[in-house]
């Protein structure tokens, strides 16, 4: 069937309305406005078409802007101050950080580091809801005249020579067998002079592009999985602006991870656990670890009598400088989390995402004016990055996360050396393997062959701790049920013949939304059941599958979580 697609043309097409994509759109719109005012240009008197914010398109797969935004979040405001100088008057900043603590958990007790180590210091930063912040940014972007299309995802790239020329959005109205329903609308073909990939962590188009055009850096990207709950607690349990980070229990010392507890205003609390997706035991269950973490006396005391209001999960790329893909090509740029703009030590990326978006906007503005959007012109982007504080911040911690590959203790030792040597440490550049290669075989971790085994899953008490389905409910995730599965497993045989024996199907453990389930077919053979409608778009499966045969692709636009207040 040949599909007749509607075509639209823009100057700039930005995929993803997160901090990076929206900053790029807003900064570019501002530059264009200033320029047009300066020369008094209109299409009529300049002889050619003037640049206009209307020719900037932004795609967002979520139901509304901000719906898929999840972060801790502590934000360093310096990039936002450059983008929106009077941000303090209108941005939903929630609360400034007033005090911070680093805690070491053992089972049953906790120890506060007498001095908060520098990476955990947050004076001058804000505890924010990224959802609210991004929603607010979306408003500014629309007010600037940019075309923002929610409920549209980028399904595939339009390749053109050595570069890219746009995006095809996802088809709407297909049933689960891929057949058109009555409301079928083929995806749009959106062509642009510059396509900016700002898809966030493990972007599905970015993944295709990096593979196809060999854009990867010397290190593969490294990822963590962040699992978060938002709580309303009893008054007086935690000061707004107090932020605590925890190390230790229940994360064993051969793993890399830690927790956060941030006090927001109105007795609301953001709590969560980040776990590096490079652990050995394939039956490790990050969601259960998070639930267990909440039962620590320190947290139990704070949460007791409170109420869970939201749940969510998202992966984060902390490969840092040496995992940054080449971020420019003919007609294309990669920014934000998709481009590895995240500080791997402090796990902070919002300000770097914003800054990367702004630098991309400056690059694009110059390229559009010159009428040349080739890789040569767009290579100004990495140069701008090089001369900005992005490079400075990322360079100091360029070897940080790699140091923890072999556990907490050697990691602390090596990162100490890095700290005093400006990031160089013992080995520079330090290499790392892809996280999924860390899995040990079932036979090596001492688990019996789990054929037909009903795994004992975490149940929760329904007050402090919850099972995965209950948590998934609180993510507000929703998908059109009758649509093709957006989690494509390239070879289902691997699941039931190879993976079940070698690794015991880790997908049923690592997924924080209970999407993957090992069920039995009519004659009792194992089969993989994919509950795609539960998906919270964290991308963990795409990252952590041991055989790398899961492709996360965009579902019908508007599907996914509703991270209100997250």
């Amino acid at each position: 069937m040949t599909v007749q697609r509607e075509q639209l043309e823009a100057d700039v097409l930005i995929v993803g309305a997160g901090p990076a994509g929206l900053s790029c759109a807003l900064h570019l719109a501002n530059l264009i406005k200033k320029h047009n005012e300066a020369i008094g240009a209109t299409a009529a008197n300049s002889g050619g078409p003037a640049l206009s914010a209307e020719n900037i398109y932004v795609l967002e797969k979520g139901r509304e802007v901000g719906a898929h935004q999840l972060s801790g979040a502590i934000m360093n405001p310096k990039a936002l101050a450059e983008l929106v100088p009077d941000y303090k008057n209108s941005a939903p900043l929630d609360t400034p950080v007033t005090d911070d603590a680093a805690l070491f958990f053992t089972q049953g007790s906790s120890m506060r580091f007498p001095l908060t180590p520098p990476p955990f210091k947050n004076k001058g930063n804000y505890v924010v809801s990224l959802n609210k912040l991004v929603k607010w940014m979306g408003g500014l972007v629309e007010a600037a005249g940019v075309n923002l299309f929610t409920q549209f995802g980028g399904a595939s790239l339009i390749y053109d020579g050595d570069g890219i020329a746009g995006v095809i959005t996802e088809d709407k109205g297909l049933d689960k067998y891929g057949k058109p329903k009555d409301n079928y609308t083929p995806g749009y073909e959106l062509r642009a002079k510059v396509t900016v990939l700002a898809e966030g962590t493990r972007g599905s188009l970015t993944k295709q592009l990096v593979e196809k055009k060999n854009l990867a850096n010397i290190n593969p990207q490294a990822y963590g999985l962040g699992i978060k709950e938002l709580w309303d607690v009893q008054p007086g349990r935690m000061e707004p602006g107090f932020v605590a980070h925890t190390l230790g229990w229940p994360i064993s010392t051969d793993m890399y991870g830690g927790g956060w507890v941030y006090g927001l205003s109105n007795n609301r609390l953001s709590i969560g656990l980040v776990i590096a997706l490079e652990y050995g035991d394939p039956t490790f269950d990050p969601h259960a670890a998070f639930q267990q973490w909440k039962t620590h006396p320190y947290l139990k005391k704070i949460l007791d009598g409170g109420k869970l209001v939201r749940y969510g999960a998202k992966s984060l790329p902390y490969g840092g400088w040496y995992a940054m893909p080449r971020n420019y090509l003919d007609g294309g740029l990669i920014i934000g989390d998709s481009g590895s703009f995240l500080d791997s030590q402090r796990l902070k990326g919002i300000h770097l995402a914003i800054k990367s978006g702004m630098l991309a906007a400056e690059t694009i503005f110059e390229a559009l004016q010159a009428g040349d959007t080739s890789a040569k012109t767009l290579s100004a982007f990495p140069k701008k990055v090089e001369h900005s504080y992005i490079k400075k911040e990322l360079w100091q911690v360029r070897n940080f996360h790699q140091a923890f590959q072999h556990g907490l203790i050697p990691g602390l030792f090596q990162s100490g050396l890095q700290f005093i040597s400006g990031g160089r440490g013992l080995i520079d550049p330090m290499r790392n393997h892809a996280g999924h290669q860390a899995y040990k075989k079932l036979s090596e971790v001492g688990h019996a062959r789990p054929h037909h085994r009903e795994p004992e899953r975490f149940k929760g008490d329904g007050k402090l701790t919850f099972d995965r389905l209950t948590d998934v409910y609180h993510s507000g995730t929703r998908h059109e049920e009758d649509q093709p599965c957006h989690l494509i497993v390239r070879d289902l045989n691997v699941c039931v013949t190879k993976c079940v024996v070698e690794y015991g199907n880790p997908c049923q453990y690592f997924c924080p939304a209970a999407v993957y389930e090992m069920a039995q077919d009519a004659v009792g053979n194992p089969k993989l059941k994919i509950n795609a409608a539960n998906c919270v778009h964290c991308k963990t499966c795409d990252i952590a599958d041991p055989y790398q045969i899961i492709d996360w692709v965009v579902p019908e636009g508007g599907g996914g979580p509703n991270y209100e207040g997250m």
Partner: protein
Amino acid sequence: MKILVITEQRQGKWNNTSFETLAAAQQIAADTGSAISAAVLGKGVANFADELASKNIAEVLLVEHDLLGAYTPDGYCLALSQVMESAKPDLVLFPHTYQVRDFAPKLAAMLGKGMIADCVGFHKEGDKLVFVRQMFQGKTVADVTFQGPAPWFASFQSGAFRADLLAAHSAGKAPVNKISVQLKPEQIRTKPLELFKEVKSAVDLTQAPIIISVGRGIKAPENIPQAEALAKAMGGEMAASRPICDEGWLPMERQIGSSGQTVAPKLYLALGISGAIQHVVGMKGARTIVAINKDQNAPIFEIADYGIVGDIFEIMPALTAALEKAKT
């Protein structure tokens, strides 16, 4: 205070949420000493106006125009802004339907007003009328109130009020007043095409008084007929939790829960359903819930009025036989 309720009919059929909203209006009117007008829009809808007149309200506003025959957001907004001018209501209430979601915010914005959408209740705080909205999928509720001068706009969620509590007119009939509105074809920018239904022959479980629902406990598609036999004996409709519809054992339109339908029947019989929150939110409004499950710790028993800890494959046929026997 003057309350105006905008009712909804489409293609010769009421949207029943209209009557729930009318019931809400009657309760607000009782609390605040207000008069209710109810408007019906369309082409050739005098019989609808007549039906409204039998309810306990002050007047019916009949708004007819050729260009209101098919729903368009422009047509409805232009017509209603004119109705607003002549009726001068303080409070305008809508049923929170798909159509209302489409035009009501636009109408409110046209008139420079705010709107409190998708409310589930109201109460009075002093002189102030406070509306209740759900947040975080019903986990918490927020009290919201209006600022600034009337008219105020609000819509009520389906199921928030009971249409069967709607009071009839005490003296027979309320007057039906026609309001003529000016609409020009060029003002209407959308062109309605033929209506289509996405799911063919969809059952409307929301109207079923008795629902028999099966979950994972049914185990295999071969066992569905046992439940169907019981449903037939009870005179109820079949429904299911998600795994069953996922497997295709029952069609998707029979799915109850957060990703399916929300129902509030008189009787809900849950067979082998554990009671995950995703399912419970779709049926917790049922008047009586009966649950049969092997696992005595299944969360479904927390909300069930009657529960049997046992094997559905023993109980289903026994119940069916007993019902058949009672009938003969």
